[in-house]
């Protein structure tokens, strides 16, 4: 396929569609809100995917970076009334700095221990930010009157960030860096023997990954106008959901997190709102149940995710059609 400025034709079409999406949806702020959420999860998913899906370091504590990014935008506002918009510069940076120190600790660990180490790091930060009231305003959280009523500016901002994360991953995976990440995922010992400083490259992967997670966090603060440690450092609602977005879409694929984010947000909302108010009320109780069940089924039958196992899905879909005709 011919290359048009880093992306393929098909990918440009998708991006074009995304750029028009807020209008296609009848300009409803509610659906625009959902789309913004999807895109935020795309950024988080991409961030996690680079570290876990491509470099094999499965982080269970991505909320740490998301949260630090959000607070990097919120704390200067809380103390000095500095606009949270500066968080777009400081959020990613703060997360990279945190990643640098965290990396020193957790990269001593491998496999399930790495997972546990990252999980614990995220939890410690959540408790810390809840407790250190002088700095973070504790559980009161930090509130900020958001700048725009319209969702359009936020939509294009996060679309830009999401696109940036996608292109970044794509470019990286076509370079030396990407090859090194993959080799670390596949076999660390073999990678070392080929002259790859695995610690250094794991830290690079973490830095890029935490940068985007921090950026997503700063965006969250700007858009939602509210942070509190239980929300932005949440183990289940951020760290684990990020992983599930990756799993559903496809670990170690460029478009996996994007597809996963779309599926996750829309399935949850479809059920939460009882099929947008059409279905009976009790359906809304099922929103997390359906998503949990989807995760179980996906891991069992389509471990590669929707994108990774697209060939299998298409084959099944195709077969059905043949039967239908016969």
């Amino acid at each position: 396929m011919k290359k048009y400025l880093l992306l393929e034709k098909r990918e440009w079409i998708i991006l074009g569609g995304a750029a028009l999406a807020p209008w296609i949806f009848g300009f409803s702020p509610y659906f625009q809100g959902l789309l913004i959420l999807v895109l935020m999860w795309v950024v988080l998913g991409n961030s996690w995917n680079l570290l876990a899906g491509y470099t094999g370091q499965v982080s269970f504590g991505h909320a740490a970076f998301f949260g630090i990014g959000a607070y990097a935008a919120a704390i200067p506002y809380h103390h000095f009334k500095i606009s949270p918009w500066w968080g777009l510069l400081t959020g990613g940076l703060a997360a990279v700095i945190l990643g640098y120190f965290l990396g020193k600790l957790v990269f001593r660990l491998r496999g399930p221990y790495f997972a546990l180490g990252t999980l614990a790091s995220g939890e410690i930060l959540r408790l810390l930010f809840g407790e250190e009231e002088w700095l973070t305003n504790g559980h009161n959280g930090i509130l900020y009157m958001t700048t725009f009523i319209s969702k359009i500016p936020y939509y294009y901002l996060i679309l830009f960030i999401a696109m940036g994360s996608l292109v970044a991953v794509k470019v990286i995976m076509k370079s030396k860096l990407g090859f090194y990440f993959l080799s670390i995922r596949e076999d660390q010992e073999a990678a070392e023997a080929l002259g790859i400083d695995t610690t250094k490259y794991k830290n690079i992967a973490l830095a890029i990954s935490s940068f985007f997670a921090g950026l997503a966090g700063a965006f969250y603060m700007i858009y939602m106008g509210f942070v509190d440690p239980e929300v932005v450092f949440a183990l289940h609602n951020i760290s684990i959901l990020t992983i599930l977005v990756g799993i559903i879409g496809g670990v170690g694929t460029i478009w996996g997190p994007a597809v996963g984010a779309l599926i996750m947000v829309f399935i949850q909302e479809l059920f939460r709102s009882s099929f947008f108010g059409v279905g009976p009320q009790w359906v809304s109780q099922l929103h997390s149940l359906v998503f949990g069940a989807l995760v179980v089924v996906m891991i069992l039958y389509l471990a590669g995710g929707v994108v990774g196992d697209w060939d299998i899905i298409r084959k099944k879909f195709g077969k059905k059609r043949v039967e239908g005709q016969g």
Partner: protein
Amino acid sequence: MKRIIAISFALFMLLNLIGCAKDDNSSIKIGVLLPLTGAMAKFGEMEKNSFELARIEINAAGGVKGRDLVFVYEDDTGKPDVGRMGMEKLITVDKVPMITGGYSSSVTFAAAQVAQKYRVPFLVNTGSVDKITEPESFDLKISDADKFYIYRLNPPVSEYASGLEGFLKNLASVETAIIFHENTTFGTNGAKAFAISCERLGIEVFEIDSYTEGTVDFKPLLLKVKEQKPDLVYMISYVMDAALLMKQSKELRLSPKLFVGAGAGYTMPAYRENAGIASEKTISATLWHQSLPVPGATDYYNAYIAKYDDKSPPDYHGVEAYAAAYVVKDAIERAQDFKSASIKTALDGTDMMTAFGPVKFIAYDAKINQNKMETYVVQWINGNLELIWPKHLAKVEAVYPIDWNAEWK
């Protein structure tokens, strides 16, 4: 591929259709934000029941301006971010001209900002952190009453203990105190407010200590009572933590002169149920009691028990919701039309009596659109929550001093 495009296109069209709310002339829809699932669902359920009770009564009596009153409930699950999204949905999808509800402080505060941004009146009936009705937290000035869309029926947390202050003033023997609070917005601010009350009363506060909701073992906290022997233990907790705190106090045989709760968990029937005998003779601040000489208070209490469950009678949370429904009705009836701006103007002029007490939104200190009211003190006596303060309203004499050894036998 074509099929997928076709299906998604059809789905988009469907979404668009649903997205456009139908204009219906036979009813008026009002949004209600409550925690219907999650840790605070117990309170949410009591408030929802009370809203429904009021709605049925109002519609039976002819509705509002000839229309049926309809409440659209949105579940905030006790989380601020979900609450904000719920608010947005109520405003942009359900297109309600006004919203009420708002249970936990943090959710209510975060959600209020959405209402303010969209200029939709939000009548808070439970969320109690002070800053909710302080225009400064919304980048407004005290003189911006015409731009401020947040109203609050219940007193702010700093005044929860005002009744208690009067009660304690009479007990000269209380000189020292320890304050325990859950580390939430409600807990932290309540603790600060009570420390100020203590200062006014000349009570020395030994220590203010926080804990995380859902703690299994409170003994490290309670041992401080054993060690420092304060006269009074003040606790700000939701139901289950409240019950465990008292159960473990009993276990450690703590014997301060008073155990005092800050409302919230300590007036709930579930507290009595779980703490059992350990709840006996504990005192709590409250905003309401069914025996108050307020028109409709007892009627509401009885109607609630008759309709729902006689085992879990409502406390002040329920009546706050019930009263909010009537304030909503009153405002809409006086408003020129069903638009948000008109309803806001009508709310400014609210001056009415409810089962919760008189309601009038005034400006004082740093607050605007705040209903100012008295608060009360209750005590669990022989398994019943009895009003003990102010004295001229109380039908039951407060039990004091308390012999914990005898009570906890």
